[in-house]
């Protein structure tokens, strides 16, 4: 039996936690709808209600907010899909095929992952520059180039995660499909992939969110304002004379993060489940 007292205590603890977590959120929401547009004047309870800050974002010619938003979605979506496709294929090979260098490859993937990508900034920069001389579409200041770097980024870890999941799918399912007449490609598509879906969903979301908020690589590789991602744009935003426009900045931050928050709220159950369950239940 849990006593009433300890329940009450827990509730108090909970509310304190919620307060700490939500305080900045409420603050920034209130700032975004506050007609008084400066940091000093902003407070938790806004002095009025206005959507001007939001509207302003889309008709300031100096700040291509709309482009940034589209860029971010485009890059994160393509990056997450590409990442997932590559990682799933690699995981399938590591889980199901027996080839020379399999163990070494698996270990290598993990080892490489240990070094954060920004250690290679200079190398990445010059590599993209060199690529750009041959294939301008993939050079510096292009989204394709940035994607190329992103794709290399998280594959190792994701491959590992997906492989672990695929290993829980009994090999006899592959064999049954083989006898049923499926080629390796079909086995991958029709049997393994559907069974791996929970973890693929999770990895997709995590990768998407990670890329959406990625700032370091983007700011090294992208130059022109219309190519910026939202994260980059907001950072520039906060450094420029716009920093004074606290309301606009807040509105931009909310518009940028709302979809992510929504996704998490909708998918949180699957995320937890996907990371812990195996491929074949019951």
């Amino acid at each position, binding site marked *: 039996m849990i006593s009433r007292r300890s329940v009450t205590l827990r509730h108090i603890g909970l509310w304190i936690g919620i307060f700490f977590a939500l305080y900045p959120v409420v603050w920034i929401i209130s700032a975004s709808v506050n007609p008084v547009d400066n940091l000093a004047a902003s407070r938790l309870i806004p002095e009025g209600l206005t959507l001007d800050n939001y509207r302003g974002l889309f008709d300031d010619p100096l700040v291509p907010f709309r482009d940034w938003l589209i860029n971010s979605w485009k890059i994160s979506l393509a990056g997450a899909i590409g990442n997932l496709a590559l990682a799933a294929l690699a995981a399938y090979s590591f889980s199901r095929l027996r080839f020379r260098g399999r163990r070494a490859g698996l270990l290598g993937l993990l080892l490489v992952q240990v070094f954060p990508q920004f250690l290679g900034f200079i190398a990445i920069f010059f590599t993209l520059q060199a690529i750009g001389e041959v294939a301008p579409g993939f050079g510096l200041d292009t989204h394709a180039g940035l994607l190329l770097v992103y794709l290399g980024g998280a594959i190792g870890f994701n491959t590992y995660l997906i492989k672990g999941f695929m290993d829980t799918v*009994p090999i*006899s*399912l592959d*064999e*049954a*499909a*083989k*006898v*049923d*007449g*499926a080629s390796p490609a*079909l086995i991958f598509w*029709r*049997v393994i992939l*559907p*069974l791996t879906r929970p973890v693929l969903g999770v990895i997709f979301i995590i990768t998407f969110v990670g890329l959406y908020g990625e700032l370091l690589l983007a700011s090294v590789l992208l130059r022109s304002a219309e190519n910026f991602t939202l994260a980059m744009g907001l950072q520039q935003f906060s450094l420029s004379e716009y920093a004074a426009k606290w309301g606009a900045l807040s509105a931009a931050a909310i518009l940028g993060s709302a979809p992510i928050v929504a996704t998490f709220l909708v998918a949180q159950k699957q995320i937890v489940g996907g990371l812990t369950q195996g*491929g*074949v*239940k*019951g």
Partner: protein
Amino acid sequence: MAEIHFDGVGKIYPGGTRAITDVSFEIHDGEFVVLVGPSGCGKSTLLRMVAGLEEITEGEIRIGDRVVNDVPPKDRDIAMVFQNYALYPHMTVYDNMAFGLKLRKFSKDEIERRVQEAARVLEITEYLQRKPKALSGGQRQRVAMGRAIVREPSAFLMDEPLSNLDAKLRVQMRSELGLLHARLKTTTMYVTHDQVEAMTLGDRVAVIRKGVLQQVDAPQELYKNPANLFVAGFIGSPAMNFIGGSVSGGHFDYGAGKLPVTRDIAAGSGRVVAGIRPEHFFVPEGELHPDQGMEAEVGLVEQLGSDALVHFEIDVAPVLTPDIRELLEDAGEDASSLGEKTKMVARVDPLAAPRPGDRMVLGVESDKMHFFSEDTGEVI
């Protein structure tokens, strides 16, 4: 419909493990052949070589007239039932059965017809829209069978398909499997380590030991005329009793006594092992001359109703050959648990059964005894 030929088939796994040695026999068209042997003897390996899931490293396997050594599984026209059923968890029962047909580009109508027909035969029609995880073990087993049946292949390959069921269901599914085969008459290769299953299901039974085929014969033939000590001890429950001794002057001398040998066994063939099936003992009505029976110290008596199992000991050290050692291991026992005396089991008339603790002479139908060479285990 097709026969399956094994011609000098051998298997060495990539790591160097030899699993199968020089297996040659054939499964006739429409025949139900059971592969039986202790765990790890290579039954699954042989089956999987027919399926195309393991490379054939030596010899040749033919299905019909075609050598299939280099034919991929999907083109061998076989269907397999796996021990763990290997149902696709994300597909409904219907889709599980239809999957192979879809891949083979059958028309929707034909798929529907075949799946419905198989479901009707297996009595799983009401579960067609369920996922496998919403089925009981027995139902999953039926779906696995259904997936094989709808393909209408030239041969079924089954790897211990009943071993995941509880005892009662296993007996039930066993007889259904028998009926199903009587109806479809599809060539079937069936793997099990359960000799009762082998004896009841097989048109013929192939006994394998350590990757070597010991004997292929009809169940009764296997039981009556085992080719060697291993087969003799493996087939039959309770198992055949073994005693070491020697044959001379028309008698088998086992140390504590003698038994008449009616058959012509070359005297001086050295040490032999005699095998006596439990049912070839009897409780004599009057006094019996010791040379017509065995001095028994009765232990446990199991009344089974139709007959009684009498466990007894005779005053001779147990015989231990490599074959017997292996049979013991397969039964989960150990040579060190044998003790000083030879333990035996007799199956006798329940009304005449002795009481525990009795000392008596148990009669032996000595003309039904088997003799094996102690060195090679081959039948004499």
